[in-house]
């Protein structure tokens, strides 16, 4: 039942947004880049600022951050090897990596964790004792994803078409990098911005991201040549949905055996966050740099649809592999 709620509250709404974008583009033939600019320069920086500022960062979870980075590294390695095996162009390899290294933790991951740990079997006498540690761990992974998706992801998307130097030039002309520096500085200085006159605009802007990004994805889908039989896209989706949980399972087993280890709850959270589908941002970056846009779109759509089944499986497996008490 809880899982049906995730589908109803998180997956289906995304598909509704995509449909709205698709239908609008079909009728009016719109310009996706117009929404892209709004996303990159207004909405995404606002979301990053708002989510990092609002998050209660627990520094004891820094090892969770590191696990996220290591997982990302192995996913990237797998993407690079597959690209070499299939003789991809550098651009296609980067598009593959972007769609597999990163995931939709912001929209789906956090909501999934919140829902799983506030429902049976994690309820004790009507209380949710595991929710706070679960959200703490999930927040750390969300911040890690935000940082790398909007810097490394952007760089990789650009590298596919530009020289590394030019790609770096583009990144440093995007506000995201400066927003990350600013928000961590503000948090470090403990400045309370919630009563500032501009704070509501950050909130509204952050709230707008999902709808704008998914509508843009829908518009792009109308423009794209979508091949449901694209083997490489299916492999990317599979690597994203199965490779992520498999890699973190190995990492967690090693850490629990030879290191101080994580609690079962944190282990389950890390596995759940690893099974989330590809981020729609990877499509927007592909559009921005005109780097295998159709391919990126296919992977996002395929992984999002397939995740309905794979996420259920991963949640179930995580409970068996890392049982609580």
């Amino acid at each position, binding site marked *: 039942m809880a899982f049906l709620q995730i*589908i*109803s*509250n*998180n997956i*289906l*709404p995304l598909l*509704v*947004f995509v449909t*709205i974008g698709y239908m*609008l583009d079909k009728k*009016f033939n*719109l*310009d*996706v*880049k*117009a*929404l892209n*600019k*709004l996303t990159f*320069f*207004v*909405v995404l920086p606002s979301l990053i600022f708002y989510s990092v500022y609002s998050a209660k960062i627990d520094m004891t979870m820094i090892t969770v951050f590191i696990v996220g980075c290591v997982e990302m590294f192995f996913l990237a390695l797998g993407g690079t090897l597959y690209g070499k095996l299939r003789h991809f162009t550098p651009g296609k390899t980067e598009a593959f990596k972007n769609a597999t290294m990163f995931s939709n933790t912001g929209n789906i991951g956090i909501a999934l964790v919140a829902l799983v740990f506030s429902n049976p079997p994690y309820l004790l006498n009507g209380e949710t004792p595991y929710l706070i540690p679960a959200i703490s761990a999930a927040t750390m992974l969300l911040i890690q994803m935000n940082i790398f998706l909007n810097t490394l992801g952007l760089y990789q998307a650009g590298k596919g078409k530009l020289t590394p130097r030019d790609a770096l030039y583009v990144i440093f002309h995007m506000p995201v990098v400066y927003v990350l520096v600013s928000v961590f500085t503000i948090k470090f200085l403990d400045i309370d911005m919630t009563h500032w*006159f*501009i704070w*509501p*605009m950050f*909130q*509204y*802007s*952050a*709230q*707008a991201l*999902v*709808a*704008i990004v998914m*509508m843009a994805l829908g518009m792009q889908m109308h423009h794209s040549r979508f091949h449901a039989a694209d083997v490489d896209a299916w492999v990317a989706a599979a690597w994203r949905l199965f490779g992520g949980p498999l890699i973190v399972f190995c990492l967690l087993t090693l850490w629990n055996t030879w290191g101080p280890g994580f609690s079962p709850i944190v282990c389950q959270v890390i596995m759940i966050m690893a099974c989330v589908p590809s981020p729609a941002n990877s499509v927007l970056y592909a559009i921005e740099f005109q780097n295998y846009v159709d391919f990126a779109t296919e992977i996002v759509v395929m992984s999002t649809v397939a995740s309905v089944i794979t996420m259920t499986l991963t949640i179930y497996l995580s409970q068996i592999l890392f049982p609580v008490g």
Partner: protein
Amino acid sequence: MACLSVFIYASLPMAIMFLIGYLLDKHFSLDVRTYDIVTRYAVMPLFIFLSLYRYIPSHVTLIPAAFAGILCLSGLLGWLLQKILPEEGTIRDFISPFMLSDTELTGVVFLILVFSHVPYFTGMGTPKTFIIPFVSVSSLLLLTSMIIHSVLLAGRRTHSLTEMIRAFFSVPSLYTAVAAVILRSFNIPLEHSFLWPVLLHYDGVFVILTCIMTGIWLHKSYSPEFKWAPALLMLVRFVLMLGISYAVIHFSGIFSPAESQVLFIAASIPAIIALTDHGTSTGINPTAAFIQPSLIIYLLGCPLAAVLARVLFPVI
């Protein structure tokens, strides 16, 4: 102090968003048509649906009727002024500056920001729940000004009553408004359906998209040259609208203080983008001349109207 609060919490954030839109268009020359279509065909209808579904004002038909009356009366006064005054330069139309209003676009954002901060919101509950009734009334006014604009445009282009009636029924938001009222009246719940999370996101999209789009339009149509005739005209409009709206609200005597405040403030909101859009579509007035004075009145005059509304229609 109250006026300064409204300026800081409502006008200033909006001005910043306009500026961001302005700069984005300056650097990237954006396709404003895309924003316009997404706003009018998806964002606005869903925003209006959500607002009315959450709360139906007790005077759901009288509020739009009163606002339409205020706008039409103002348009009539504009027409009379046009007959009385000599033709100044290239301004040939006094009706659209008087009759149109940016309530059809960012006016609702202004109202949301006004009512979610001091001196209106004083801490009982959360701002988001407090402003629900105000947003609902504002949505009705948004719909009214959109319909008025649509009908006026059709009338100007075709001079056909049939086309004007067709224009009335061609506004997508009208249908979502009616749907919301029907669903709420029959207590058909949406809160547990997959559509509810979709609807909840459109609050933020509406605020951001309308403000950014305004900034983009400002860049595309801005002229640095300041002309006194359009400035005086918009100032006269501002003062007249306050008078007309006060008279309508006071002599009708049917609206609650909250509804009266929203109506009064909305009536003061000038037309910037509505006028730009109208001018572009009809080619009648050089709209660039109105932008500067309208913007000044919007950002500086409307906070005054907000404070005046509290004084004239106090919520006990």
